[in-house]
């Protein structure tokens, strides 16, 4: 059930009505309803994996309580590692086993030993990386005495399985979401209206920009050996906008939907393509994952306290893990390491926290220098996305090889209607303008709430709905569902 599907358009209003008008007077009923709705939502993908989700939830719930009540540090450690190993074990089996088996076989073949890798024919359970990280953060926080174990199983399960964030995040923290789950929630018109606005913007990003771009990006990446360098650059650009609008569009919808139920989720994107350096980009891209790695990996490894070498080592580790988290493929690992290389000069020269403010804050346009910085950062990002999108390392290298050829200076041409390509380019430009003008808000059109004249607001909403309807691309699965 995709957020931009007809089935979800039926599911959401039903849950909304039941939540506020039937279960609205009791927090317990509200939470039970949301949990049932979340499990139903998840079962719509594949009901078999619901057992895995429930097991994972139960494991962390029990180990959390056991850790809290453990009489000795040893027992505490035992329950902690049990949870970590089982959680990562599931992730390893479902997501990484085949990758390791195949890589091992290749490595053996390189030294002359030919083995047939024993691979598992398993489907990756949707959202496993996300809910595993939810659970891990909860267990680590208890182990580090940051929070107390949750005793109410319904509340804890809802924290892990709340349907807006279940399959593609944002990756929540118990410290942020659990208190909201336990607090009485009353209907707040302004919050719900803001939620709807954010859903609308997310839908525009996903249905119009991402889905349109995906059609062209897919064609170009699939047939890259037959296209000119300029066409391949265009393909990389289309993918750059596709992945941003796909994922941030999903996050906007998730945040907006949660707000309909009176719950605030963590912000996941903050206009990353307007970043002036790669460090700023990573503070603005998939924020919930970046901060997870910062808090649960980078800082425990020593963070930036141990001098330049430690910082460099830790940065490489988190980018390596981040790449690997995205998928069991060398392309993702290379993408992660490439970003580590990009950020390295800033780390070494201690310039990684220079651009903390919003670009051109209070101004309509950036300075020439800022514009150049944005363009450079954007170009580096586009280049890195080629590895992310390529099907294999050889595909990525051949794609890049063809870009840097004489054909780079030709007019791009590929199998698509010119009118449609032109339409998409215009829509991207409109999208960039709206994002730029709203970059000081939580999301691009949040500031519309400040418009006093209702007519302007409604005219804008209607235009947006019309654009979504008229220019929606073919419904595509969200990219991050595969992670």
């Amino acid at each position, binding site marked *: 059930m995709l957020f931009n599907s*007809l089935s979800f358009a039926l599911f959401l209003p039903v849950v909304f009505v039941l939540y506020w008008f039937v279960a609205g007077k009791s927090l317990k009923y509200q939470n039970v309803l949301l949990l049932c709705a979340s499990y139903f939502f998840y079962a719509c993908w594949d009901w078999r994996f619901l057992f895995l989700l429930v097991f994972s939830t139960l494991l962390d719930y029990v180990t959390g309580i056991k850790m809290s009540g453990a009489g000795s540090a040893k027992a505490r450690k035992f329950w902690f590692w049990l949870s970590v190993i089982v959680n990562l074990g599931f992730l390893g089996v479902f997501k990484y086993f085949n990758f390791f088996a195949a890589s091992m076989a290749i490595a053996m073949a390189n030294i002359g030993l030919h083995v047939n890798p024993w691979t598992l024919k398993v489907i990756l359970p949707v959202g496993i990386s996300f809910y595993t990280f939810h659970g891990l953060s909860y267990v680590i926080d208890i182990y580090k005495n940051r929070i107390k174990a949750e005793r109410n199983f319904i509340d804890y399960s809802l924290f892990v399985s709340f349907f807006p964030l279940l399959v593609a995040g944002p990756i929540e923290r118990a410290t942020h979401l659990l208190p909201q789950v336990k607090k009485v929630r009353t209907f707040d018109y302004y919050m719900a209206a803001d939620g709807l606005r954010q859903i609308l913007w997310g839908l525009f990003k996903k249905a119009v920009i991402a889905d349109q771009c995906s059609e062209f990006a897919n064609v170009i990446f699939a047939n890259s050996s037959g296209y000119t360098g300029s066409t391949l650059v265009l393909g990389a650009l289309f993918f750059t906008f596709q992945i941003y609008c796909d994922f941030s569009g999903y996050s906007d919808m998730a945040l907006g939907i949660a707000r309909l139920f009176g719950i605030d989720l963590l912000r996941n994107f903050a206009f990353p393509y307007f970043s002036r350096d790669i460090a700023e980009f990573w503070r603005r891209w998939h924020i919930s994952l970046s901060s997870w790695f910062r808090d649960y990996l980078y800082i425990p490894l020593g963070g930036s306290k141990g001098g330049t070498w430690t910082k460099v080592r830790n940065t490489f580790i988190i980018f390596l893990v981040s790449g690997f988290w995205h998928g069991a493929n060398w392309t993702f690992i290379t993408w992660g390491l490439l970003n580590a290389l990009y950020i390295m000069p800033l780390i070494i020269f201690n310039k990684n926290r220079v651009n903390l403010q919003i670009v051109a804050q209070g101004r309509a346009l950036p300075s020439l220098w800022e514009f150049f910085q944005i363009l450079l950062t954007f170009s580096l990002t586009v280049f890195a996305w080629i590895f992310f999108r390529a099907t294999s390392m050889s595909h990525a290298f051949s794609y890049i090889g063809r870009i840097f050829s004489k054909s780079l200076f030709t007019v791009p041409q590929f199998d698509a209607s010119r009118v449609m390509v032109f339409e998409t380019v215009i829509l991207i430009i409109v999208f960039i303008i709206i994002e730029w003008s709203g970059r000081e808000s939580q999301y691009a059109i949040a500031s519309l709430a400040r418009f006093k004249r209702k007519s302007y607001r409604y005219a804008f909403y209607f235009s947006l709905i019309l654009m979504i309807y008229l*220019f*929606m691309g073919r419904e595509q699965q969200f990219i991050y569902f595969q992670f």
Partner: protein
Amino acid sequence: MLAVIILVPNYIINKKSRFVISNKSKIVLFGHSHPECAFNDTLINSLKNLSHSAEPYFYTYQKVKMVLLQNPQIETVLIEFTNNQIDAKMDEWTWGYKYMSSMFPKYTPFMDRADIGLLVKNNPKDFMNCLSVSTRTNLTRLLTSNYEFTNVIGGYLRINNSQTNSTADSSTTPPIKITTERLSFVNLHYLQKIIVYCAVRGKRVFLVRSPQHRSYEYLKNEDEFLRIRQKMFSSVEFLDFNKFPIADDGFADFGHLNYKGASKFSNWFNIMLNSGLLNTDKKQFLINQGISAVIANDKTVSLALQSFAAHQLDFRLSYAKARTY
């Protein structure tokens, strides 16, 4: 408001659309790419080829309604009925995204609720996108005041090249056996609707089968095809040109004639029409005779055709004489 944006252009286009063809065209031909490539209507008197590639009967039905409504001079409707049109593959042609996204926007204004319902039921996921493309197409038509459909609903398609020789050579290995395990009941249902619609408007209807190469994969379902034809369409006369002799270099591929093949077939068909093919009682008998004449004189087709025309005259005279007795 959205409903207005969808429905109003549909209504206006439905009312203002133009499907008008030449007054001289008394016979129209509908179908998919096989007749589209086989019947060169510049060589056939009074016939207008309105076939279109990858068009299942669902969309043909919409076209037939409008063409017959706006062209009262049409007397006869020929509809291609061939082996692949009974196959479940036609369902994909009807509501599969690739086909629906190109066909549906063109014919939305002429569809009724049952037609729309069929698409929604079978492919709700892609329907919304196709509806969106359709609205865009309609709005563009409105803005440019372009209500002309005649140039987009089909016509003879000329293909110059031939790939049959190379593919025929490579097909020495046994071909994959294609049998029609599943029928496209929707396609067959809409063929029935077309036939009924034509009958209601007082038009003569014939099913035709264009020439196909002997290696054409769907010929494997011939028994099933003939059974369906007998069972569902026995009341409609069937003109079978499947075995019309065309050399390999007259085919673009196993299912389609190229320009050379189409010229040979169309010239012959023109003579057949002029010889009164559609007015005789034993149409298939005449067709087979005509095919035999071509086979017998294949080296000099024009002579064969002339002799066939003379033969037809003799035949009709003797046939008339026999009836008198």
